[in-house]
């Protein structure tokens, strides 16, 4: 069962995405900021990280760099409302594999998870 680390400061987004993923057979871990994501990544080594960008304590871009430093093979997909081209480029430079812009249809996030965990 692939393990997904959901990183988002919005409790609602974590709840909704966790429900969707567990209903489709994925194991889910959650973190509410980038710093917690780095610690959880080290502890549970998920198959994929779904990472928000704008978060308190540590943002998603910094957390992506930290996780890639710990594990260069880490698979991280940014899931953000920030549709700015400059932000997409910054995320890819930090090591993100893909970028999903909110709002998204549930099938979009499931297809992205399947792509990186199958």
């Amino acid at each position, binding site marked *: 069962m692939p393990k997904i680390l959901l990183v988002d400061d919005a409790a*609602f987004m974590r709840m909704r995405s966790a429900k969707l993923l567990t209903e489709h057979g994925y194991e889910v871990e959650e973190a509410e900021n980038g710093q917690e994501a780095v610690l959880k990544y080290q502890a549970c080594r998920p198959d994929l990280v779904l990472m928000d960008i704008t978060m308190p304590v540590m943002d998603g871009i910094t957390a992506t760099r930290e996780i890639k430093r710990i594990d260069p093979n880490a698979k991280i997909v940014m899931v953000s409302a920030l549709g*700015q081209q400059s932000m997409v480029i910054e995320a890819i430079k930090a090591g993100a594999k893909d970028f999903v*812009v909110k*709002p998204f249809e549930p099938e979009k996030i499931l297809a992205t998870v399947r792509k990186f965990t199958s």
Partner: protein
Amino acid sequence: MKAEFVNPFVSAAYRVLQTETRTEVTKGQVTLEDSPLVSDEVTVLIGVVGRAQGLVLYGMSERTAKGIVGAMTGEAIPVFDAMAESAIAELGNVITGLASGDLERAGYPCKIAPPSVVVGKGTSISTLNIKRLVIPLYTKFGELQVHVALRETY
């Protein structure tokens, strides 16, 4: 206040509300205000910094907020609790984030802060010397007012 700051928020709000709540949205008359905003029952505040700088606010009644969150979750929301606050804050965050993409393409790259929520009617919120463009949006859940108080910086 530049009129070109309006359309990114209108189109983003249409897209987000239609995707998240499966409802049609219509826009009312846009007005320009320079007095402090007196909050409705639920107000989401999001700071913006960059070439466009200021504050974006989303105001609505609790009934409207519950209706929107209920449509987002597919469940009735009897009480406007912490999870409902998180959902309505995320709605504002996603609208502002999407709008920031259009602002960047128009030559105003900017970053947005995590959202805050004011619950309770009658709080006076001043955007100081930045005037507010007020965009009323009508949904089947009630009215959502988008307040855009942004100025260009160099």
